[in-house]
C-alpha cells in the first residue's frame, strides 16, 4: 500500500522524477486556471450575471470577508496567497471522489511545500509591513534568551501545518482503502463523504492558520505603533 503518491513515479530522469503528486497537482492547477479563465473571460459588471460568475463571486467575497475579519486589515494583499492556499487544498481534497485520483495533499512533500511557502510568507509580509529590524526584533522579545524558543516555535508550527494536513488527508485515503478491503459495499461511501468534509475543513484550517500567523507577524507592529501614538498624545497633554 502506498502511503504517499510521491512513490508513484511515471518518469525518472536523474534526480528529476515525474510522480503522481506533481502530475495531479498540474491537473488540479489546470482545472482551476481553466475554470477561472472560462468564468472570467465574459464577466458582467451589470446586475444580471451568470451562475458560475455568481458562484465565484460568492467564493471570492467570502474569502475576502474571512481574511478581513481575521486580520482586521484590507484583505486585498493577502487574498491571492491565502485564497489560493484554501482553493488549492479544497479542490485537491474534493477531487478525491474521482476514481483513480490521488490527492496531492496526501503527500508530505506537497503539504511541506505549502508549509514552507507559509513559513517564507510570514516574514515577508511582516517585513513589508513593519520593516526589517522591527520584524526581527520580535524574536528577541521579551529578552534575547527567547530567540531559540521563538525560532523553534516558528519551525514547529510550520511542521505542524504540514503534518496536520498530510496526516488528515493521508489517513482519510488510507481508511477508505482499508474499509474498501474489509466492507466493500455501503460503509466506504459514508467514509468517503466524511473524507470530503474533512478535506474541506482541513483546507479551511490550513488557510485560517496561515492567515493567523501572518496577522500575528503584521499586528505586532501595529500594536507598537498605536502605543507610540498614545505616548505621544500623553506627552503633548502633559506639555
Amino acid at each position, binding site marked *: 500500500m502506498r*502511503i*504517499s503518491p*510521491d512513490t508513484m513515479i511515471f518518469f525518472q530522469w536523474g*534526480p*528529476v*522524477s515525474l*510522480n503522481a*503528486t*506533481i502530475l495531479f*497537482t*498540474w491537473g488540479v*492547477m489546470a482545472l*482551476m*486556471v481553466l475554470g*477561472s*479563465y472560462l*468564468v*472570467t473571460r465574459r*464577466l*458582467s*459588471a*451589470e*446586475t444580471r450575471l451568470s451562475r458560475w*460568475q455568481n458562484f*465565484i*463571486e460568492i467564493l*471570492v*467575497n467570502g474569502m*475576502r470577508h474571512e481574511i478581513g475579519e481575521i486580520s482586521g486589515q484590507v484583505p*486585498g494583499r493577502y*487574498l*491571492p*496567497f491565502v*485564497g*489560493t492556499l484554501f*482553493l*488549492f487544498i479544497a479542490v485537491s481534497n474534493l477531487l478525491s471522489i474521482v476514481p483513480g485520483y490521488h490527492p*496531492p495533499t496526501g*503527500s*508530505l*512533500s*506537497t503539504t*511541506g*511545500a*505549502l508549509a*514552507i*511557502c507559509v513559513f517564507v510568507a510570514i516574514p515577508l509580509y511582516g517585513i513589508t509591513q513593519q520593516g526589517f529590524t522591527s520584524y526581527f526584533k520580535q524574536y528577541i522579545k521579551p529578552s534575547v534568551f527567547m530567540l531559540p524558543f521563538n525560532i523553534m516555535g516558528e519551525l514547529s508550527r510550520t511542521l505542524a501545518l504540514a503534518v496536520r494536513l*498530510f496526516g488528515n488527508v493521508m489517513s482519510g485515503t488510507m481508511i477508505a482503502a482499508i474499509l474498501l478491503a474489509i466492507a466493500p459495499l455501503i460503509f466506504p461511501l459514508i467514509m468517503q463523504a466524511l473524507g470530503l468534509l474533512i478535506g474541506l475543513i482541513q483546507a479551511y484550517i490550513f488557510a485560517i492558520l496561515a492567515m493567523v500567523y501572518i496577522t500575528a507577524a503584521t499586528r505586532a507592529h501595529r500594536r507598537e505603533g498605536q502605543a507610540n501614538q498614545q505616548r505621544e498624545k500623553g506627552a503633548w497633554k502633559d506639555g
Partner: protein
Amino acid sequence: MLIDWFTVTAQVINFLVLVYLLKRFLYGPIIRAMDQREKRIALRLEEGQKKKDEAQQEMALYQKKNRDLDNQREEKLSRIKEEAEARRKEFINEARNEVDAIRARWHEAIQREKAAFLQNLRQRAGKQTCAIARRVLKDLANVDLERHIIRVFIERLRNLDDQERTALKESIRKSGRKINLRSAFEIPQDMAREIAAVLQNQGTDPVDLQLEISSDLICGIELKVHGRKIAWSLEDYVDTLEEAVVEALEGKRIESTD
C-alpha cells in the same frame, strides 16, 4: 522517506505559479467586476435619488400649480356668480320698474276713464234728474221746474243776511253794475226783470243783467259779479249721487280684490 525534496521544490514552484495564475485569471477580474458593479449600483442609486428629488420637486410644482388653478377657478366662479346676481337684480329692478310704469299708466288710464265716466254720469244724471223732476212737478203740481228754480233763486237773493248783502253790494259796485247770470235753461223776460228788481231792492243802483245759457250748469242758475257767486243747481244732488256711485265702485273693487 516520505519527503521527496525535488517534489517539494516542484510543488513550491507549482504553488507560486498557481498563485500568479489565479491572481491573473480569478481574483483580479472578479474583484474588478464586483467593484465596477458596486460603482454602477451606487451611481444608479445616486441617479435614482436625484431623479426622485427632481420628481418630488416637479410634483410640488404641479401641486402648487393645481392649487393656484383651483384658486383662480374659485375666484372666477365667485366673480361670475356675483356678476350674475347683480345682473339678476338689475333685470328684476328693470322688470319691476316697467311693471310699475305700466301699472301707473294703467292706473292713470283707469282714473281718466273713471273721471270721464263720472263726468258723463254727472251730466246724464243731471239731465235725467232734471227731466224727471220737470215731469213729476208738471204732472203732480202743474208747476214749471225752471220757473220754480228761478223762484227759489230769487228767494235766496231776498233772504241774504246783512253781511252777504253788503258784500254783494260792494261787488256790484266794483263790477260797474255788470252782472252775469248764467243758467242751464233760458230765463223768461219777466223772471229776468224780477231778478233785476230784487237786486235793486237790495239797495243797489239799476244793474246791467247779462243773460247766458250754459250747458255746464245742471239744471241750475248762477249769478256772478266781480268774483262773487250766488247759485242754485242740482249740482249738490248730483255730487251726492256721484259720491254714492264712487263709493259703490270702490266697494266693488275692494270686494273683487278680496
